[in-house]
């Protein structure tokens, strides 16, 4: 079998391979360590962090939908300090990049977290401006162009780390938001976060999730995510980390062809704990079969 170069460089974040895992779907890595060698994964974006520890939302947090699920975890996490103390050392045992997904109640909090993490051993910051489960945080941030401008530029000023900005799909014009993020200093764009959705229990006659709506993920949203990656590719020069419903190598290849430089697996981890490894292997075979020397050549390699 001939070989193919799987390394990708996301504008300064160098990955051994382009298969990463999406924030909130892989815990802090340790939960999956019994099922997969974490060194097989290009990068791990950890569960969304906040400045202080958070308990997350009360009541039912999940509902299944046709080929999807909605969640309303509400950023339950041990806080950035415990992450630094306990999770970074654990993850550093493995040959994988660490992406810290950061979330604030306000712009100051985002900046403070970025500052704190500047001096810590993480490879990248992923600015989550799109979590739909935190009312006073995410939603407004990720959908309002002027707030996006402010949060990205201030976080950029607060830290020299590699900076990924993660976009919300719940917007009219995703290109506009991506361009603002690029302009204000993002090194990379990741998309998409979950779509806002609701499931109602017709027996109890109330929304299944205690908070009403939650974030829709999984195969159901894949066509929307592919379209957004395709659109954003045309709008920015910085690399794209694509995600949304990827479950197998066919899905993954779709994202590369749409314009993603690397991809993240989310919900599919719940179904197949070793899916990342499988996708990496199948992607490699596809590349070899189709005479590619490097996975980078696949990015937006649409035939005309």
């Amino acid at each position, binding site marked *: 079998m001939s070989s193919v170069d799987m390394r990708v460089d996301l504008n300064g974040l160098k990955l051994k391979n382009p298969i990463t895992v999406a924030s909130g779907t892989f815990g802090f890595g340790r939960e999956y360590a019994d099922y997969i060698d974490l060194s097989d994964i290009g990068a791990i974006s950890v569960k969304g962090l906040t400045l202080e520890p958070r308990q997350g939302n*009360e009541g039912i947090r999940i509902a299944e939908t046709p080929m*999807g699920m909605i969640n309303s975890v509400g950023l339950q996490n041990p806080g950035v300090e415990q992450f630094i103390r306990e999770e970074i050392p654990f993850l550093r045992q493995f040959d994988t990049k660490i992406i810290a997904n950061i979330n604030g109640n306000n712009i100051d909090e985002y900046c403070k977290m970025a500052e704190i993490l500047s001096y810590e051993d993480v490879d990248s910051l992923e600015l989550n401006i799109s979590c739909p489960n935190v009312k006073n945080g995410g939603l407004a941030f990720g959908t309002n162009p002027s707030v996006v401008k402010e949060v990205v530029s201030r976080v950029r000023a607060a830290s020299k780390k590699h900076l990924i900005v993660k976009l919300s799909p719940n917007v009219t014009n995703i290109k506009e938001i991506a361009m603002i993020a690029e302009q204000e200093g993002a090194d990379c764009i990741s998309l998409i976060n979950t779509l806002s959705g609701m499931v109602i229990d017709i027996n109890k006659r109330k929304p299944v999730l205690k908070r009403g709506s939650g974030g829709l993920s999984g195969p159901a949203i894949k066509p929307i995510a592919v379209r957004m990656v395709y659109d954003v590719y045309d709008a920015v020069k910085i690399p794209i980390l694509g995600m949304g419903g990827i479950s197998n190598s066919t899905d993954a290849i779709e994202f590369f062809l749409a314009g993603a430089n690397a991809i993240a697996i989310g919900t599919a981890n719940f179904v197949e*704990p070793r899916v990342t490894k499988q996708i990496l292997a199948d992607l490699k075979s596809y590349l070899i079969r189709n005479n590619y020397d490097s996975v980078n050549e696949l990015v937006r390699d649409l035939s005309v």
Partner: protein
Amino acid sequence: MKFQGLVKVIQKKFVSDDVFKIVIEKPEHMGEVRPGQFFNFNVERMLLRRPISVSAIGEETLEFTIKILGKGTKELSLLKTLDEVDIMGPLGNGFDTLNHKKVLLVGGGIGVAPIKGLGEFLSKDSIEMKTLLGFRDTPYMIDDFKAFSNEVITVSENDKDYRLGYITVPLEEVLADPKEKIDMIYACGPLVMLKSVQKICAQFNTPVQLLMEEKMACGIGACLVCTCKTKEGDFGFKHSRMCLEGPMFYGDEVIFDE
């Protein structure tokens, strides 16, 4: 590495209209499986896996007892002998099985399944067991319990062939009876039942292990969608993952929602 992969179904039978048992071949390298632990079953037509407790732990086999509730369990009910099914596990913290003299088993609805697995496990030691079973409609699996339990009391909400009512009534009777010296209660059933059981056990100051159920996704602690409140510190609470810190919690740990 923990097990995830295909296993072979070597037996399958219905024990009531909508409850069936399947026995699978235990894969070689699977570690110890304890009562109260569960496996996450891949279901062809559904996105998410379905968690199912072990209802019997053999040397080379595992048994599961499943109630058809929705599409996923319906799909599982189509499994036939020699079919393969993708499972992962064993998952979660099962029951603590210390050396008690007399224990009380309490099972409601399909919650009887893991309790049966526990009873069979305990019966290897000479522990005295008493069992309370509660059903909404026609009871099932009573004979399984009679095989190892010194006494089995069955109630049903609707089946007139049995004592009518909720399981909480005989539970209170047993705990109020000074002759019964129960060291530990093990309970599994719908959340409303567990909530009442918790209250009654607290009243009678008897320790109880509750096996909880909630919709899950990852089953291994990564996604945080399966939480319940547990006591933390003197006043506070935290959201514990049923799949990892549970599904067994002691009665004095859990805080049930209103």
